[in-house]
């Protein structure tokens, strides 16, 4: 067991998979000599060579598109999108191609591809280096979407993602990279895609989140404990496939739910979770399913006061929880 941060956990997971399978390779901007702008791939080019850690041209559509082709030719590509904000030029390749090849070929062809994308804000990244993109992609059948919040989960999930026979969008919250540390076992392990985890058990309210927000939720739950309210914090970890049973099971127990995400409220993934709960756990509800999310503005501004105003925070979560507890 060693304590490492989330970034190191991802790097370790990739490193171990590359050591184990010569078909695993990385394609992305600045992933080679520079080791990625966040240093996730640092040292990997030295270790595995420029043939397997490839600095791509500045062109996201072909980063993903070429990785799709490579996946069809018996390799296990990892495409790095430098910032999640810059995944949009590759939207067509992801949605129309990667996610559909298995279905459209009636199971003949599959695309074992991982797309890594650092997302999220609170890092002074402004409108185009802070975005949450999960709602766009968690809507796409044929694509898996994961968003770990701890080093343990990150390492276990990146390994599962690389082994997965289908395309996985692997979302890494930038602010958690160095902020979140945790124990990671020395032995080989996996965290399964599609399984949520209760990160803090509780009885009165179910609090649902992923990524950075999970940590804010844990802080808020701690505060509510002081109020005598027992909050269960559920870490989704995977958004697609979504662990519906874990969500419904918890809400059936607590009777109340708050979903938190950083992404814009309207049309965000919180709507799906809320809809699932009210459709399948209606009789267990003691109050409205509530959502706390980024406001409906195009993105997160640079100026600190505006960025702060955008971000959900432990304080805002506490306020929402108190409102729900009082319901």
């Amino acid at each position, binding site marked *: 067991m060693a304590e490492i941060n989330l970034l190191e956990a991802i790097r370790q997971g990739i490193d171990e998979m590359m050591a184990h399978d010569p078909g695993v390779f990385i394609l992305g901007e600045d992933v080679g000599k520079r080791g990625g702008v966040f240093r996730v791939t640092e040292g990997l080019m030295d270790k595995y060579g420029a043939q397997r850690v*490839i600095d791509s041209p500045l062109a996201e*559509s072909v980063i993903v*598109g070429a990785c799709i082709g490579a996946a069809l030719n018996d390799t296990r590509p990892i495409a790095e999108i430098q910032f999640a904000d810059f995944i949009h030029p590759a939207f*067509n390749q992801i949605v129309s191609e990667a996610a559909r090849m298995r279905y*459209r070929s009636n199971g*003949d*062809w599959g695309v074992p591809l991982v797309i890594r994308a650092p997302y999220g804000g609170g890092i002074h990244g402004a409108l185009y280096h802070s975005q949450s993109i999960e709602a766009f992609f968690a809507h796409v059948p044929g694509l898996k979407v994961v968003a770990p919040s701890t080093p343990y989960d990150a390492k276990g999930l990146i390994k599962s993602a690389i082994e997965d026979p289908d395309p996985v969008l692997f979302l890494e919250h930038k602010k958690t990279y160095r902020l979140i540390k945790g124990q990671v076992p020395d032995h080989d392990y996996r965290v399964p895609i599609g399984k949520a985890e209760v990160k803090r058990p509780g009885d009165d309210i179910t609090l649902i989140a992923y990524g950075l927000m999970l940590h804010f939720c844990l802080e808020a739950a701690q505060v509510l404990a002081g109020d005598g309210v027992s909050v269960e914090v559920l870490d989704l970890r995977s958004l697609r496939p979504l662990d519906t049973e874990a969500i419904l099971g918890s809400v059936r127990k607590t009777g109340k739910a708050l979903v938190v995400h950083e992404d814009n409220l309207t049309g965000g993934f919180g709507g799906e979770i809320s809809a699932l709960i009210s459709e399948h756990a209606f009789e267990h509800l003691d109050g409205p399913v509530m959502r706390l999310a980024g406001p409906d503005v195009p993105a997160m501004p640079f100026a600190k006061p505006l960025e702060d105003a955008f971000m959900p925070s432990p304080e805002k979560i506490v306020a929402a929880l108190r409102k729900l507890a009082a319901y």
Partner: protein
Amino acid sequence: MTLSDHISYALVDEQDELSSDTLREMYRYMLLARALDERMWLLNRAGKAPFVISCQGHEAAQVGAAFALQRGKDFTLPYYRGLATVLVMGMTPLEVMLGVFARAADPSSGGRQMPAHYGSRRLKIVTQSSPVGTQIAHAAGIGLAEKIRGGDAVAWTSFGEGTSSQGDFHEALNLAAVHNLPVIFQCENNEYAISVPQRMQMAVTSVADRGPAYGMPGISVDGTDVLATYEVTRRAVERARRGDGPTLIEARVVRMTAHSSDDNDRTYRPSSELQALKQHDPVARFRGYLREHGILDEVQERELREQIGHAVNEATEQAERAPMADPETLLEHVFAG
């Protein structure tokens, strides 16, 4: 007996001088593609095939190119006009017709996709979508993987000249050039993208002009000449296998039909042009060549046509009788397992 039994795999190799047998075999594929294509239109007019899209006029470009590839080894990523391509690469008339009727046994998609969206993992024909140009990037990626894995297979992809306007064309050719990938980009230039003529599509006269801009050869060839297309492709394949990198080939062809069965090209093509199309028929042209050179006589021609007519009939009947997919299967194959 289906027609595919006649296919001599050995014919599809890299020899320089093509034997008479090979030349006749090339012709047979062109005839077969034409016959299947014409049958599809009949089925469409008869209300039996809701959608048809043609390779008529592109046969020479496709057969010439495909004969320079190695079946079972090289990857092809054809676009929706690639009927002749997939036939040479091993798809049978029955398999094609199962797609036309969207039957459960359609090897490309089990009837999920429109006809002409060919694919077969066994034959290394990569599953194809409708958004144009995406396959150009996949071809580059297949080449990249081949390089990483140390193999010497080639990825061959085709697309129209309209599609060369897509960003994916640019990004993929650039990547392939930077890494010297074993990829052949065949642009089948029929001078129209549905109704949009080439002069509204680009300000250059040849898509091949773009090769050098990426640092790769750009070669324009008369795509109604099967032997010329074969020869330029053969050289491109050699180059790619040697590790010398990609080639862009523009095959100048004609679109002898409307864009698809949903189109009416009389609304945008001058009638003089429509009338002149037959003069560029690549099948007639190659027949002329073979007759002139004494490679094909009337008897052989008649036999070939009979054989093909029979095969097309049989494929049509068998495919029509085949069952549709069970609605229960709608939810299958979203993910593996």
